[in-house]
């Protein structure tokens, strides 16, 4: 297994290079847009030239590409056109809120998803199963921004139970740490719920079919023949092997921690990576968009690596296989 991990890690480097190259190619291929943002109508010709030189836009393309690669290696992702601060600093600030939101959403997603799947698999074709299937199908089809708007309307505007946006109330820093935490949690509920619910529908569906498949397996029949209770069979003998696909799903969802919340962050003004991306898109702040996109891709690559490793750890068969 060590060999497997080592190989995958080594493979990561050329993949990151490829991803960075693709990012650059896409941006370079766009019609003059990079330069557009830098341009301002009020600039004189000299000022325009100076700005271009500063961003290296007067260099031939291959030079820009090499500069781009070089700066990535040193961790410099460029400077924002709008705020003039390093993209890395912007990301460092935006990442924790996104991770927080993503983790909360994933937790909700899996807990809810597992509960529903178990409940449905307990009595297949029973009323709970049918209802949850239909509801899950509909929820999975609803656009997340629509769900968010509805939840804001009901829970924030009409009922006033939760705040409608942002991560903190004003002056939250002055509060006692516990109260500040409570304030944060209150702000977290709605966005995490929006993300988590839609995810839970998909997770529940996937898990349910996995559970049902396992139930039909021979060893389950054997357990039943031995006289074990349904409950015991479900929780111990069915759920455990089902955890394997759960782990896979979890691994696949890891990159989602970073990228899944773009829309939700936008609607809730949650100060994370997604919101930064949207704001950068509207301001045509290309370096920020490039930096975030690159970071997202790298996160996915690392995430799938972790998922594979996790899978190998959990599933003895995969270990022996060595693939």
């Amino acid at each position, binding site marked *: 297994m060590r060999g497997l991990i080592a190989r995958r890690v080594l493979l990561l480097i050329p993949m990151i290079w490829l991803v960075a190259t*693709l990012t650059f190619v896409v941006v370079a291929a766009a019609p003059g847009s990079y330069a557009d943002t830098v341009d301002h109508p009020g600039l004189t010709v000299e000022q325009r030239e100076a700005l271009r030189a500063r961003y290296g836009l007067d260099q031939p393309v291959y030079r820009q590409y090499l500069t781009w690669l070089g700066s990535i290696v040193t961790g410099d992702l460029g400077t924002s056109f709008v705020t003039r601060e390093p993209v890395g600093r912007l990301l460092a600030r935006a990442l924790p809120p996104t991770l927080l939101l993503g983790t909360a959403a994933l937790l909700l997603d899996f807990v809810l998803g597992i509960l529903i799947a178990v409940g449905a698999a307990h009595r297949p074709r029973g009323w709970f199963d049918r209802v949850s299937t239909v509801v899950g199908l*509909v929820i999975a089809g609803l656009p997340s921004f629509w769900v968010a*708007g509805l939840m804001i309307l009901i829970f924030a505007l009409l009922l006033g139970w939760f705040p409608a946006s942002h991560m903190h109330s004003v002056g939250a820093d002055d509060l006692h740490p516990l109260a500040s935490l409570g304030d944060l949690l209150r702000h977290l509920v709605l966005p995490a719920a929006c993300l988590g619910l839609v995810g839970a529908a998909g997770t529940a569906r996937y898990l349910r079919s996995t559970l049902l498949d396992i139930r039909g397996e021979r060893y389950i029949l054997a357990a039943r023949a031995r006289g074990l209770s349904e409950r015991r069979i479900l929780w111990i003998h069915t759920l455990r092997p089902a955890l394997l696909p759960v782990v896979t799903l979890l691994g696949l969802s890891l990159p989602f921690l970073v990228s899944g919340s773009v829309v939700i962050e936008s609607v809730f003004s949650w100060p994370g990576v997604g919101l930064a991306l949207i704001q950068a898109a509207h301001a045509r702040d290309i370096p920020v968009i490039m930096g975030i996109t690159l970071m997202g891709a790298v996160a996915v690559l690392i995430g799938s690596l972790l998922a594979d490793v996790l899978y190998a750890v959990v599933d003895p068969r995969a270990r022996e296989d060595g693939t």
Partner: protein
Amino acid sequence: MSRSRRLQVGVTGLCLLVVVCMLGPVILPVPPGIDPAHSALLPPGTAVTEVVIDDGRTLVSPSVRFEGDTVVVDGPRRSATINRSQITAVRDTRFWLGSDRFGRDVLAQLMAGGRISISIAALAALIALLVGTTVGLTAATGGRLVDAVLMRLVDALMAFPVLFLLILLATLFRPGPLILVLVLGMTSWMGLARLVRGQVLTLRGRTFVLAARAAGSTPTRTWRTHFLPNLAGPLSQDTALRLGDLVLAEATLSFLGLGIPPSIPTWGAMVAQGHRVMIDGWWLATLPGFAIAALVVSLALVGDGIQERLLRGRS
């Protein structure tokens, strides 16, 4: 829901949506005219009277009073009084799904938006199908080096979170319907390429193909009789699901303001605009959301149904 029912329900829903959107303007009655001063934000089902005047204006309102020689058209803030002699036409009609802030019929807008959303998603899916199939085939039949290079490329492209890539592309390339179709198509062909490659590789090793080859069947013949039918199933399932993803992707981009310019808003843009008047006009954001969900769910059901058929066919 029984498995076989899924396909039926899905196909029915899909056909219904497509037919209504595409043929709606032809088969349904003409919607009320646009009169923002008097018929804005009317709830679904409101009956209105439409009065056309000789200077070309159309007045529409739920409250139109005929008083002798004059006609009074009431609006929320002011009323218009006109002379009977100015009237060229009068009609009683209804805003079946309500009106928006500018007095436009929501049903008509949903249909127009649906035409655009469906067309964009369909065209993008077509592009994805073409590119994905080509790349997948090339990888499967082009030798190990070609396969390795192409698959690494696919892996790298798939590493980008889709929405990030879409936003990057939508920002760089000026949004227009054609560009949007290209952008959506070029970000969704990768999964298909993997699928095709996998299928072709598997099929190549299958006994019946080897047998056919041994029997002297030409490559094209092998293709047509053995590969394509086997590909058709998984491809159509994938396409159905992909269409759903594309519809959601387009709706999300429109919602974020990065889609096509909103002179005819797509469903996503309608939700975004509807958000602004959530309390006064809940139907403006809710109905397009339902429409999107209906389309995506129908497509998902179709995809599920096809998968079910495939599984049954296998065993």
